C-alpha cells in the first residue's frame, strides 16, 4: 500500500466527485450532413439520453495504482477521457493536480512520411514535452526501443511492431503526476512485454498516481493497490484490489 493513502497531508493527484456523463443522441440519427439538415427541418426526431457514467467517485494519491475493470462498453474509455481532461463531466467534478500522461492508443500522432527521429520529436511534443527535450533524449529512446539503425528512415518503412515499440519508448520516457494506462502492456513480443512491464513499474514507482485499464487480471493484482469495477456506467465495487477482482471474477 502506498504511504500516502488515508492521510490528507498530501493532496490527491486525482479526485473525481460524483461525476456523471450523459449525452443526447438523435434516434435514428444519420451519418450524413444532408439528411441531418433535412431531419432538422422536419423536426420530428426523438432524442435518446445515453448515460455513459453515473455517480462515479474516485480519489487517488501520489504513488497509488488504481485498476479499472469491467466488460467492453462498461464506461472505461469515458472514465479515462474524464481523467485525461479531454471530456468535462456533465455533472459532478473532476480535479487533477499536475501533469497527465495518457498511454492510450500509443503512436496515434505518428506520421509515416517523417523519419523516426522527426516522429520522436513530434510525438513527444504532442505528449507535453518540448522539442529540445526530445532531441536530447532521442538517443536514449531509440536505444531502449532497440532501433538505432533505422532512426533516419521514414516511419512507413518500419514494421508495426517496431512502431509500437518506438511509441511505447517515447511515451514512457518521462514521468507525470498521473499516468493513464490503457491496454498498452500487450505491445510487442514476449521479451518486449516483459521489458515494458518493468518500465511501467519503474514509472509508477516514481510517486506518480496511475490508473490501469486492462483485461489482464494477473497484471492488475500484480501492480494495483485499489480497483474499481464498473458496469453499465455505474460503480459496482470500489476498494482494495483483491476483493474487487475476486468479486469481478465470480460475477
Amino acid at each position, binding site marked *: 500500500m502506498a504511504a500516502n493513502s488515508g492521510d490528507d497531508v498530501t493532496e490527491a493527484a486525482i479526485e473525481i466527485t460524483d461525476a456523471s*456523463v450523459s*449525452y443526447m*443522441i438523435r434516434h435514428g440519427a444519420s*451519418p*450524413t*450532413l*444532408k439528411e*441531418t439538415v433535412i431531419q432538422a427541418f422536419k423536426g420530428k426526431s426523438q432524442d435518446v439520453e445515453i448515460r*455513459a457514467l453515473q455517480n462515479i467517485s474516485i480519489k487517488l494519491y501520489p504513488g497509488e495504482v488504481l485498476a479499472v475493470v469491467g466488460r467492453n462498453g462498461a464506461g472505461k474509455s*469515458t472514465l*479515462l*477521457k*474524464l481523467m*485525461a*481532461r*479531454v*471530456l*468535462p*463531466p456533465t455533472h459532478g*467534478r*473532476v*480535479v*487533477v*493536480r*499536475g*501533469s*497527465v*500522461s*495518457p498511454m*492510450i*492508443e500509443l503512436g*496515434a*500522432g505518428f*506520421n509515416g*512520411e*517523417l523519419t523516426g527521429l*522527426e516522429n520522436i*520529436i*513530434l510525438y513527444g*511534443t*504532442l*505528449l*507535453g*514535452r*518540448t*522539442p529540445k*527535450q526530445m532531441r536530447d*533524449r532521442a538517443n536514449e529512446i531509440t536505444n531502449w526501443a532497440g532501433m538505432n539503425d533505422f532512426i533516419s528512415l*521514414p516511419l512507413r518503412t518500419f514494421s508495426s511492431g517496431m512502431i509500437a515499440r518506438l511509441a511505447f519508448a517515447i511515451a514512457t*520516457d*518521462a*514521468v*507525470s*503526476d498521473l499516468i493513464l494506462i490503457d491496454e498498452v502492456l500487450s505491445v510487442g513480443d514476449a521479451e518486449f512485454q516483459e521489458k515494458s512491464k518493468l518500465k511501467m513499474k*519503474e*514509472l509508477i514507482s*516514481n510517486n506518480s498516481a496511475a490508473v490501469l485499464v486492462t483485461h489482464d487480471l494477473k497484471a492488475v493484482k500484480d501492480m494495483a493497490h485499489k480497483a474499481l469495477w464498473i458496469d453499465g456506467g455505474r460503480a459496482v465495487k470500489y476498494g482494495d484490489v483483491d476483493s474487487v477482482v475476486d468479486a469481478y471474477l465470480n460475477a
Partner: protein
Amino acid sequence: MEKILMKNKVYDSSQSGRVFADTFRAFWDHRQLIALLVRRDITVRYKRSFLGLLWTLLNPLLTSLVLWFVFITIFRGKLPDGTQFAPYVLAGVLLITFFTQGFNQAADSIAQGSGILMKIYLPPQVFALSGVLSNALNFVFGLFALTFVSLLTGDGVSYLFILSIFPILFMLMYVTGLGLLVSIAYIRYDDTRSVFAILISFMMYLSPIFYPKEILSGKVLMIVNANPLTSFLDVFRFVFLNTGSASWGDWAYMSSFSVTTLFLGIKLFARAWPRTVVMM
C-alpha cells in the same frame, strides 16, 4: 527520470473557462507544437512529390496559366486602367488557394487528429491553426512567383506591398474560424466534404478571381460584392500590385468579417467539441 511539468498545475472541471482567453492562451502555450506541425505539413508535402516545394508553386502557376490562356482575349481591355491580366489572375488564384486549402486543412486536421485529440489533452484549435499557418506560408512563397510575373508584364510591385500582411492576417483569422466551425461536421458526417466542396466553389465563382468586377452589374454584382472574398481580393491586389482600388469599405468588411468568423468559430467549437468527444 525526467518529470513532465504542468503550466497551470490544477485542473478543475467545475471552473468553467473563458473560451476566448483560453483559446488564445492555448495557441501561445503550444507555439512550439504549432511550429512542428507546420513544419510537418510542409515537409510531408515536399517529400511526397518529385518536384518538392516547387510543386506547391507550380500548381497555382499552372492554374493561372490556363485561366490566362482561356480568358485573355475576353477580358483584355475590361480590366481597370493599366492592369495586366497575368498578375491579376495569379494574385487571385494564390489568394483563393490559401482560402480553400487552408479551410480544408483546418477542418481536416482536427478530423484527422481526432484519434489523438480524444485521448490526450491537447487543444484541437492548435491543429486547426497550424493547418492554416502552413497554407499561409505557401501563400508567402507564392508571392515570389507573383512578383516575378508582375515584373515580367511590366506592372511591378506596389511600394505598399508590405501592407499585404493585413489581408494575410485577416485571411488567417477567417479561415481558422471557418475551419473550426466546420470541423465538427467533418468528424460527425461522412458527406461534409462533398457538401462543402460545392459551397466553396460557389464562393469562388462569385468572387473576381479571373474576371474583372467591371463586367458585372445588377444583382450579380451585389452578390459578388457581398462575398468577403471579393474584399480580400480587392485589398490584396491593391496593396501588392497597386491595381484596381480598395475602398475603406473593403478594409472594414474584410476585417470585421474575419474577426467575427474567428470568434464565432472559437465559441461554437468550444461548445460542440465535448459533445463530439463523448460520442466517440
